């Protein structure tokens, strides 16, 4: 029986959950990286053994990126800083927001989205990274501003088959796409609204506060985005976007996740607003569309019916790679839920954790 490993990055450390009975029950390892915020976790399933990543940080001692080649039982922090801004940039790494391995055709390439707004690339499996200069020197960069969480490049979406194409998302800068492997980047925000701007300026070229992007590898031209007010779909690789909010109680939220095996199935966790970051009507509900955003419906099976005030953050929802796909989300109330039936019923993986910042799953033969 394969083992499923769930990396749960929290505000105060990393918890590894393990299941050896096809995700029916879970055991939790002791907390790793105690008292460090774990904003990003990653799984590189292209490697044998599978390599795990944890981007941890301390308010006192700064950020670090560690990896594990023994499924989370021990962690290695390279002697040389894996991610560091080059000398002369007068810039220092604040946080690692996302670790994203490239598709299988680039087996040693791993990307890291960081704060301040920047993209790093590794060509040695995530041991050392270099700044992607094409984005760093983009003329828009000096006009990007921090979101509430910081000046973060939080989402990296490599194209599944074209190594030249990739999207990144920044708060608050918007979506950018490269078609030449990162040398040049184009703002891809047409149709996405910046509601806080004057009415006649609400559709700028860039500066939108996108919270998360997601795509299904079988439909790589179609992207979904959860924005700071606004849920959007692009059917042309980000050239333009249209709102898809019918059935959602609110259009604010952080995560959006396309089902890895069902391109028309997408999950979100709506929140009331930026001023009230809690679920609609005080109920913990995942929303799902089966028709690529034409309609959305709440999923409640197995989720608390009590009043619920926890949000789900952008990197705290994921899918595993099992043929019977498992989906997971963690909340700022320290609970983690899983489903094996596309969200019809959810069960608790863990509770009483610190607030959950990031989640990734690995299925190990």
């Amino acid at each position: 029986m394969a083992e499923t490993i769930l990396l749960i990055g929290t505000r105060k450390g990393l918890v590894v959950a393990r299941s050896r009975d096809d995700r029916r029950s879970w055991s939790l390892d002791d907390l790793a990286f105690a008292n460090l915020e774990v904003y990003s976790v990653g799984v590189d399933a292209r490697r044998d053994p599978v390599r795990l990543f944890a981007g941890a940080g301390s308010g006192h001692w700064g950020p670090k990126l560690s990896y594990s080649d023994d499924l989370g039982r021990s962690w290695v922090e390279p002697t040389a800083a894996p991610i560091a801004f080059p000398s002369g940039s007068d810039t220092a790494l604040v946080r690692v927001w996302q670790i994203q391995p490239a598709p299988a055709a680039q087996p040693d390439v791993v990307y890291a989205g960081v704060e301040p707004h920047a993209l790093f690339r590794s060509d040695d499996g995530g041991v050392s990274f270099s700044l992607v200069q094409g984005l760093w020197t983009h003329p828009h960069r000096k006009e990007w501003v921090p979101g509430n969480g910081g000046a973060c490049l939080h989402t990296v979406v490599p194209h599944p088959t074209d190594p030249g194409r990739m999207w990144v998302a920044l708060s608050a800068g918007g979506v950018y796409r490269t078609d030449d492997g990162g040398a040049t980047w184009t703002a891809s925000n047409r149709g996405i609204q910046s509601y806080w701007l004057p009415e006649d300026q609400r559709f700028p070229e860039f500066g939108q506060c996108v919270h998360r992007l997601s795509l299904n590898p079988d439909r790589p031209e179609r992207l979904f985005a959860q924005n700071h007010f606004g849920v959007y779909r692009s059917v042309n690789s980000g050239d333009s976007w249209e709102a898809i909010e019918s059935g959602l109680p609110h259009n604010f939220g952080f995560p959006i996740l396309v089902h890895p095996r069902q391109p028309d199935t997408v999950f979100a966790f709506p929140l009331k607003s930026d001023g009230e970051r809690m679920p609609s009507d005080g109920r913990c509900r995942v929303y799902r569309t089966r028709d690529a955003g034409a309609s959305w419906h709440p999923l409640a099976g197995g989720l608390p019916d009590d009043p619920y005030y926890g949000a789900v953050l952008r990197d705290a929802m994921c899918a595993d790679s099992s043929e019977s796909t498992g989906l997971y989300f963690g909340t700022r109330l320290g609970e983690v839920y899983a489903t094996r039936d596309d969200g019809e019923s959810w069960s608790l993986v863990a509770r009483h954790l610190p607030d959950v910042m990031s989640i990734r799953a690995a299925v190990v033969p």
Partner: protein
Amino acid sequence: MVLPEALREVAGGQRAIEASGTTVREVLDDVAARLPVLERRLRDESGRIRPHVLLFVDGVSVRAPADLEMPVPDEAEVFIAPAVSGG
């Protein structure tokens, strides 16, 4: 250099280490050469002492960037501590 408990793991478990240099910058450069993981807990890659790191030379606080040139006498004690932060 005297280390707080949180940093001893990246200094081989030692409570104190020897370091050489005539200024704070040189002392930190020496630490960087021998214990780079420890050094980057104290300074970021731009060379600044991290904002919540307290560093004292014989009891005198070193905080501002310019103080990196503060002299470090022979046999001086460089004392590292986390700033008291949070509630």
